[in-house]
């Protein structure tokens, strides 16, 4: 009974309702980021077609699934397929076309996009190096389609939104916590006193970081703090919303400093950190710019370029019923 109850409580926490519009904004961010990632930040796979297949060392998943040896065609299909899928998903979320087809199309597109992006990553990581900043984002791509085609300005709370956002949060926390774990597993407890950060600075340090090489204790202190905050990551689920957001701000600052010192940024992971933030304010803010924000006034009017039937009364306290979407959990 104990484990069952724990599982029930976990499930209740996972599904506690959150604003649908927060999840919708997050979904737009996820798909917009895919374009940035594939075309600009991590286009590594796009060069693989030129390299002889002898360099390809398929990962386990590439051996279980009959994934093809990367050729120019394989690369192009996974690249442009995921980009088009993400573009279409963003268009659906922003335009919210009426009709059943759109509600069916959104999750289908989402999962096809996730699969193609995954293949693009397999192509990236089958040549000798695997990055670990992409787990949370892959998880996000897999769960966001289950949200269904929700409205950006939906005033509702929903269990689906809660599930999607909390799952991504768990992915973020797991990334930190297990990263500390991996350091202890591969580096041993002496990792904290080792010269790993010094090595990183020698290999790719900026002018900002170079002076620190002459003060090795700063780099060792950095290593202690990294392990400490990574191990402490799960605690953010236990603290108040206010402290949770402070912790997220702290994480963003850590990554900003890392970027300044060794020009490494875990971009997909940074995107996933958004799942902790009250993103719904972004869409309300844009409303507020159209009209002064009435405290208890009538429903805000839609922005001028939106057609009336897609954006009426979404922000009012009692929103018009939104057609329910089959939940894929």
């Amino acid at each position: 009974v104990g484990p069952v109850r724990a599982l029930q409580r976990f499930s209740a926490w996972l599904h506690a309702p959150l604003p649908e519009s927060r999840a919708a904004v997050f979904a737009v961010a996820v798909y917009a980021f895919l374009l940035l990632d594939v075309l600009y930040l991590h286009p590594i796979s796009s060069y693989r077609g030129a390299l002889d297949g002898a360099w390809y060392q398929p990962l386990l998943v590439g051996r279980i699934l009959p994934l093809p040896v990367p050729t120019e065609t394989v690369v192009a299909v996974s690249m442009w397929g995921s980009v088009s899928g993400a573009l279409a998903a963003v268009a659906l979320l922003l335009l919210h076309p009426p009709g059943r087809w759109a509600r069916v199309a959104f999750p289908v597109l989402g999962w096809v996009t996730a699969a193609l992006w995954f293949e693009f990553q397999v192509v990236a990581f089958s040549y000798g190096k695997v990055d670990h900043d992409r787990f949370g984002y892959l998880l996000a791509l897999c769960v966001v389609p289950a949200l269904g085609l929700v409205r950006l300005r939906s005033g509702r709370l929903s269990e689906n939104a809660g599930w999607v956002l909390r799952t991504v949060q768990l992915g973020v926390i797991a990334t930190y916590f297990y990263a500390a774990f991996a350091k202890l597993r591969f580096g041993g407890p002496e990792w904290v006193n080792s010269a790993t950060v010094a090595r990183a600075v020698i290999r790719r340090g900026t002018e900002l970081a170079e002076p620190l090489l002459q003060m090795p204790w700063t780099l060792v202190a950095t290593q202690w703090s990294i392990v400490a905050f990574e191990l402490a990551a799960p605690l953010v689920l236990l603290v108040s919303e206010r402290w949770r957001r402070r912790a997220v701000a702290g994480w963003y600052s850590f990554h900003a400093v890392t970027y300044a010192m060794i020009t490494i940024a875990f971009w997909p992971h940074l995107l996933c950190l958004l799942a902790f933030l009250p993103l719904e304010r972004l869409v309300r803010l844009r409303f507020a710019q159209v009209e002064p924000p009435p405290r208890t006034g009538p429903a805000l009017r839609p922005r001028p370029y939106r057609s009336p039937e897609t954006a009426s009364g979404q922000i009012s306290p009692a929103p018009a019923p939104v057609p329910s979407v089959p939940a894929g959990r």
Partner: protein
Amino acid sequence: VVVVAVLLTLGTWVGEDDHFPFGPFRMYATATTPTGAVSVLAIEVRMPGGPWRPADLEPHSVGISRAELEGQFRRVVAEPERLGMLADAHARLHPDERRWEAVRLLRVGRRLVDGRPTGSEQRTVLAQWAR
């Protein structure tokens, strides 16, 4: 969610990079000894009649990155013709540039004493290929 969590936990405990996306998050997870050498791999190339000169070891240049080549460098030492594949990839990615006639792989080592670089640099040729 529970299944994913179990797989990820397993991957972190006993998995390897091979088990992506459930492998361990091991970037920067190895410990570097404070006194020893930090080495990086580099390539140098030669055009017909020219001297050796450094070339980018980056995916946009040769289809593979420095870190990846470091993961496979033993295979390169055993099969230097793999350097020729880099030359071919470079020709495909940059058809307008001059073709490489020869490629060699070097290890560039910098010594570290008590976590501080000493300033000495050692360059060793690990493998070489010519058309």
